[in-house]
């Protein structure tokens, strides 16, 4: 199990790539009940809204960032704070990569700060994020 005492600034979280297709986006938007056409109606999205393709939901990318942290933490700690912003749009067909690294470790408080990002194939950070994880004293 991950131990707070072994975590160091600069540690990188295991990365994960996502290449959502239209079925995945249908499932996601059905699950959250989001009827916005830019996530499933290609003619509307390109012809009316001027996007080059079906838009990958911003909050789905936010979720991928939390998954990176939660899988890394396992049962050792919990996510207590999370921020993200969608800086630019990504489209179906793109491969996006969730990345993260440790930016601060506070042994006294039992917390670890993380810098996160969803990168596109051009290595641009389309969705930056930050998280704070807390390690309960009895588990670190």
């Amino acid at each position, binding site marked *: 199990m991950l131990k707070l005492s072994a975590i160091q600034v600069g540690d990188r979280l295991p990365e994960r790539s*996502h290449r959502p297709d239209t079925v*995945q986006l249908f*499932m*996601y938007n*059905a*699950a*959250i*009940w*989001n*009827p*916005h*056409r*830019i996530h499933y*109606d290609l003619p*509307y999205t390109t012809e*009316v*809204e001027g996007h080059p393709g079906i838009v990958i939901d*911003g*909050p*789905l990318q*936010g*979720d*991928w960032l*939390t*998954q990176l942290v*939660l*899988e890394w933490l396992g049962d050792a700690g*919990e*996510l*207590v*704070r*999370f*921020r*993200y*912003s*969608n*800086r*630019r749009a990504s489209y179906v067909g793109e491969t996006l990569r969730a990345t993260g690294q440790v930016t601060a470790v506070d042994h006294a408080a039992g917390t670890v700060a993380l810098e996160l990002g969803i990168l596109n194939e051009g290595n641009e950070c389309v969705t930056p994020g930050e998280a704070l994880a807390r390690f309960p004293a009895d588990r670190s």
Partner: protein
Amino acid sequence: MGLLTAEHKAAIGRTLPPVRAEVTRRDIRKYAASTGQRLERYLAGDEAPPLFLFGLFFPILPREQLLEDGRNPDTGLLPPLPLKRVMAGGTEAEYHRRILPGDVLLLHQTLIDLYEKTGSQGPLIFAVVENRVETEAGEPVMTERVTRIVR
């Protein structure tokens, strides 16, 4: 500058009636499958991933009430603004407690700030909404600040 009038500013502090939602195992499982979760507690619906709360309180409206682009109509929390194009903003959340099947949660939304700045390409309006989620008993679950940038 000076896009926001006293009338706009008067909307700061405005709240919407609380929205109530039940958390079900089946909805958690749908969310987990659709987002590609790999942790068993989420896939089995024993607990909801934190961003499950993003969609939990979305209105469920008949087709004829949705806008042309499929979106839900405006909730009225923000006053009509003199700029219209919404740009990416940011979300900052604090999680106080795990989200479990069977939970009955309440969302309280408040417009907590409205201000303007001049960006490199002209004026920008920032609207900050606080989403506070708690149990029916008043136990805090999540507090979030969502900033929308309008240009």
